[in-house]
């Protein structure tokens, strides 16, 4: 049928198509006509636009504030990943100009590590938010908790819980796995700011719980924490990590 000669029918078909109730063979025939004939295509697009406004007309419901926190955490993780990839690409470009000597701190540029860290980070975002929520009651009597991280080992097993108390200005670390460093080694905690070099947050002794002095600026806008295995006493001040990463995880700001 020549639909263009029947404008009312054309409009009704276009409206049913946009509504989604035009199905099966009728839908396929209408779409074929729309591809061939511009006026049919125009009617289809007009009705798609008109009915799309249905999405604007629903009554408002205020979402829980945690939704925005989740969105921001995921975007921060995504931004960190992009920054790290850019940094790695730049480093690779520099390396192409030089002889290929093995360099210390090469783990920072390990693609596999960062891909893994990102995937683990996304998972840890979910886990840490959940853990953060479950911990709410337990931590009720604690003075304050502003940031939470669950650091996982390379088998994704939770190995360390890190919280930041803004009132006491300290990081509280709790070992939750069975990891035990040998007597000639120390664990060292690092903040991995997006696009920047790792910053040491302190060296751990082998106690199950530990408090490290820290200010909010040390942990603000830091999406990821990592723990490396270093020589006894940690790396010299100002130096980057030298040993392997043993635990890592996303640092989440807690807003409830």
């Amino acid at each position, binding site marked *: 049928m020549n639909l263009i000669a029947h404008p009312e029918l054309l409009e009704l078909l276009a409206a049913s198509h946009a509504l*989604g109730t035009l199905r099966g063979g009728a839908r396929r025939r209408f779409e074929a006509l729309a591809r061939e004939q511009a006026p049919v295509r125009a009617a289809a697009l007009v009705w798609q636009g008109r009915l799309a*406004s249905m999405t*604007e*007309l629903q009554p408002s419901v*205020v979402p829980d504030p945690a*939704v925005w926190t989740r*969105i921001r955490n995921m975007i921060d993780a995504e931004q960190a990943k992009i920054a790290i990839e850019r940094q790695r690409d730049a480093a690779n470009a520099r390396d192409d100009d030089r002889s290929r000597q093995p360099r210390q701190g090469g783990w920072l540029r390990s693609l596999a590590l960062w891909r893994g860290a990102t995937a683990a980070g996304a998972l840890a975002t979910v886990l840490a938010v959940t853990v953060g929520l479950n911990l709410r009651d337990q931590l009720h009597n604690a003075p304050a908790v502003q940031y939470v991280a669950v650091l996982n080992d390379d088998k994704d097993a939770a190995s360390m819980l890190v919280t930041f108390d803004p009132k006491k200005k300290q990081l509280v670390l709790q070992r939750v796995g069975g990891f035990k460093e040998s007597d000639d080694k120390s664990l060292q905690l690092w903040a991995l700011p997006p696009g920047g070099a790792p910053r040491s947050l302190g060296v751990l002794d082998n106690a199950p719980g530990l408090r490290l002095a820290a200010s909010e600026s040390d942990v603000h806008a830091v999406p990821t924490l990592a723990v490396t295995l270093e020589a006894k006493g940690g790396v010299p001040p100002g130096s980057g990590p030298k040993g392997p990463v043993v635990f890592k995880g996303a640092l989440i700001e807690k807003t409830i």
Partner: protein
Amino acid sequence: MPDNRWMTVPSPDAELMALIDRIGHRDEAALRLLYDRTSPKLMGLAMRVVRQREWAEDVLQEAFLTVWRVAGDYRSSLSPPLAWLGLIVRSRALDLLRRRTADRAQLTQEFDELMADTLESDAPNPADTADASEQAWALHQCLSQLEGRQREVVSLAYLREMSHGELAEQLKLPLGTVKTWIRRGLEKLRVCMGRFA
């Protein structure tokens, strides 16, 4: 024109479009502003499609991550900003419903009960037209001319992408009734929207 509201109240579209442009340039503060401005509206839409607060919040989260990633493409869509955001939310919400339906095939009974709507003949038209585009406002006027149950059936067909048969089953109505309401509803919309064209 039955009303000249659109001539006297400045459209909020320009402000929302400016925010979306900034988001396209990776401006996180703009995303926060857009979220503050639109999240209740979009949450309401998500609730209407998925009917469960927890799911609707997941949908809202995924939708804003999508906005963050695709905001640069907004201009080429030629849509009013809130309608563009609404389409993203609807699409994520339908994705979630499909996933949940597949996940819980054995729990369809519970799912149907959750999704079941009660249609009331005098259901008010609950639209909140704050921030709505001119086009949405025209649609609102035209939907208001439909009888409550007809309007509800047409709205659910669109928002949940449901066929005549699915609507009849979920709303516990005869198939013929659903078809008739939708046909008459669309006919009234056709005449009414033509006046706004």
